[in-house]
């Protein structure tokens, strides 16, 4: 038995689906080589096989967007993955021992990392290990850990005071089993929402880093770098900024909507709306 599809889930799913599709197809086919510099086709207008035109180096915008989707997803998955894998257990551990020293330690270190701007961290890592997609992803991931840990802790605290956790303890369950069988499934929907929101933030962060020159290196296409390169032509050829900007906005919107929609969809209590009499 599954819940009704809601509008947010549908729109979010379609937007995210488009990004994923573009990224997957780009492995096999793009209209043109997105990295091919073509002096003759410089600032080519849309049409004639170039759906969205070409940039100042003559590279096809549409092809760049497709491959850029790949970068975007790659960054999002790795960054959110790091944050979820590190942050969730930390948050759960803190939530399951609310009065212990462990909880204090985790949450204070968390505050410390949280207080440190993600972009600054990325710039520092970039300066030390060299700027690139990987350093950007790690920096964004590390900076997102506290968000996950906090959400996981808050949700765990709520689950730990429920009767079913008490019932599980009375049944003889130990802490690890309670963590995996009761806490994790019940905070899952909250984590999924957090993941999609973090995914959206990671996309923005990668775009910002690439825009600043600390993210994806040329010639790998990235939406953020496309924006940066279009900067000087913003008034003469606005379409060069419009398309990557639109792609970023829609992808971020898509992930946010998907997260909200999934939360409602996955909640068994909301699945069946019972009329109370």
């Amino acid at each position: 038995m599954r819940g009704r599809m809601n509008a947010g889930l549908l729109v979010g799913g379609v937007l995210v689906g488009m990004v994923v599709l573009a990224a997957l197809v780009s492995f096999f086919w793009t209209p043109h080589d997105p990295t091919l510099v073509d002096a003759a086709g410089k600032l080519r207008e849309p049409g004639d096989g170039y759906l969205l035109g070409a940039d100042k180096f003559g590279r096809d915008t549409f092809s760049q967007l497709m491959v850029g989707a790949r970068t975007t997803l790659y960054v999002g998955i790795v960054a959110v993955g790091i944050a979820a894998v590190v942050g969730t257990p930390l948050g759960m551990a803190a939530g399951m021992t609310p009065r212990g020293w462990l909880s204090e330690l985790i949450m204070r270190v968390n505050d410390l990392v949280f207080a440190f701007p993600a972009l600054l961290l990325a710039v520092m890592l970039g300066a030390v290990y060299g700027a690139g997609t990987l350093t950007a992803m790690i920096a964004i991931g590390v900076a997102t850990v506290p968000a996950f840990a906090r959400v996981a802790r808050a949700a765990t605290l709520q689950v730990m005071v429920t009767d079913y956790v008490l019932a599980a303890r009375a049944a003889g369950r130990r802490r690890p089993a309670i963590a995996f069988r009761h806490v994790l499934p019940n905070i899952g929907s909250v984590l999924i929402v957090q993941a999609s929101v973090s995914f959206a933030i990671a996309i923005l962060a990668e775009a910002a880093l690439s825009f600043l020159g600390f993210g994806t290196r040329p010639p790998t296409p990235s939406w953020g770098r496309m924006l940066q390169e279009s900067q000087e032509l913003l008034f003469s050829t606005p379409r060069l900024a419009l398309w990557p900007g639109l792609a970023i906005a829609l992808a971020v919107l898509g992930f946010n909507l998907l997260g909200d929609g999934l939360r409602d969809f996955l909640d068994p209590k909301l699945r069946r709306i019972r009329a109370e009499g």
Partner: protein
Amino acid sequence: MPSHAGTPLIEARGLTRVYHRPRSSLTKPGAAVEALREVSLTVGRGERYGIVGESGSGKSTLLRLLCGLDRPTSGSIRFDGREITGLPERRLRFLRENLQIVFQDPMSSLDPRMRVRDLVAEPLVALGLPVGGRVAELLEAVGLPAEAAERYPHQFSGGQRQRIAIARALAPRPKVLVADEPVSALDVSVRGQILNLLADLVDELGLTLVFVSHDLSVVRHVCETVAVMSAGEIVETGPVDDVWAAPAHPYTRALLAAVPTLEGLL
């Protein structure tokens, strides 16, 4: 059923539990609240023991202590002759195998994301006991169809959910069943079904029953012995019919007078 047969199964002596409120000032520690003060009780083998009290009486705290879910500030609890206070969870296995609980609200005491099969089997899995065909057997014993095993708690009515909770509690073949207000969240028309079922199971399986309720008339139907609690203490205890007929403590009298009845009207 003879009461007080043989040695006591549960023996609590001088139980006190002090909680500390979270501190609200940097210099002073949080205020201490005595939830339970010097409480002693004895539950015999096969006895049906009722604990009556209102919110804040300490009955929930007492229950948690008896079930080894919390530790007393002072005092001791012996279960079947063995001390349980202060034992770490890994050494409470004998208690978990022999004492199981049915909670008040079956909606919140059953994990909404687990299937009934896994819920009922949970005590067995947790204690490393064989599951085998036990789930089907238990569901039948509480009057639920075998197909119920594949479904989730929210697909059942309140009364059916409480049956699931009872099946789960009986899974490891405990000696003692602790029921914490098991019918107060249920509709009147199903309350009788659950109380009858509990009585049948206690009879058939020769269980000792600890039954907690705010309602003395329900306890009178179910139990032989009652302890009345108020403000963290047991104020009166004895055979339930005696307490009902001639309450000695002023609080018990007030409690009895306050219960609305149909009899007076008709």
